[in-house]
């Protein structure tokens, strides 16, 4: 029951928010005390322009892990509407230029996966534990399998 409801909610969220990955888990402490490791963020990507103060999730070219930080600078072009964006984690001393690709000074819209619009604490620990200690994932799947095989009906 719980697995199927989680799956329904996940797929429903994908439809409603229009994004491929509507929920992310916070992996680092760079946004504390607002977001701690293990919290989950709900994302939404609308066509509205990106503005300072918004918390965005982005990918750096060549890196897999998405980063969730706040926009601190926006420069939007008159003619094309394209933007140059600079981000920073609330708990970091400096801005994110150190995290960007070599020579990259700004993020553009295509780097941004979504805006964080809502938040649930602690729920993401399940994902973190399963990623960092895969043995637990195997134990869990093994136990579920065992349950299915040995159930009386």
């Amino acid at each position, binding site marked *: *029951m*719980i697995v199927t*409801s989680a799956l329904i909610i996940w797929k429903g969220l994908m439809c409603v928010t229009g994004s491929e990955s509507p929920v992310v888990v916070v992996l680092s402490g760079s946004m504390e*005390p*607002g977001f701690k490791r293990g919290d989950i963020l709900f994302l939404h990507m609308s066509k509205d*322009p990106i*503005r*300072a*103060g*918004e*918390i965005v999730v982005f990918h750096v070219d060549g890196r897999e892990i998405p980063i969730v930080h*706040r926009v*601190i*600078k*926006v*420069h*939007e*072009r*008159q003619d094309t*509407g394209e933007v*140059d964006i600079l981000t920073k984690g*609330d708990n970091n001393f400096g*801005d994110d230029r150190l995290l960007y690709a070599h020579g990259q000074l700004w993020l553009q819209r295509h780097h941004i996966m979504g805006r*964080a*619009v*809502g*938040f*649930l*604490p602690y729920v993401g620990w399940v994902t973190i534990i399963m990623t960092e200690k895969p043995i637990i994932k195997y134990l869990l799947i093994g136990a579920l399998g065992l*349950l299915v095989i040995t*159930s*009386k*009906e």
Partner: protein
Amino acid sequence: MHSFGYRANAVVTLAVTILAMMCSMASLSDNFNVPSPTAEVKVLNINWFQKQANGNDEVSLTVNISADLSSLFTWNTKQVFVFVAAEYETPQNALNQVSLWDGIIPSKDHAKFWIHTTNKYRLIDQGSNLRGKEFNLTLHWHVMPKTGKTFADKIVMTGYRLPEEYR
């Protein structure tokens, strides 16, 4: 239907469902809060105003920020992230927003504050457009909840102007 496994499954599902409902009700209750914050930002001094080697203007200012954001706090508020941004237009850019200072207000007791500071983040233009530039200072706040939806809004203060000449 009465084995331990099925009962445990039913109980856990119910518990998680109730928890999710409580979280969304907590978040919904935030919508009933009608905030009435006040803020004032004074530019006390332009410390220096130069054109960098790469052709971009940069200015350093000292500001005095005073605000009362206590009406933003509800029982579901974890913290309020507040920042002051300079906003201006240039021929090349329809909008430039540069955060000058930000802070975190952890509780209602700290929500009425007064701070005297130079800009935490550098105000650098893309180009050399800042001489005599009129700009707005906006105080933005993001109310970060204990669970649920984030609320954000701002107060726009107009009428600021940079000097005509470098100094």
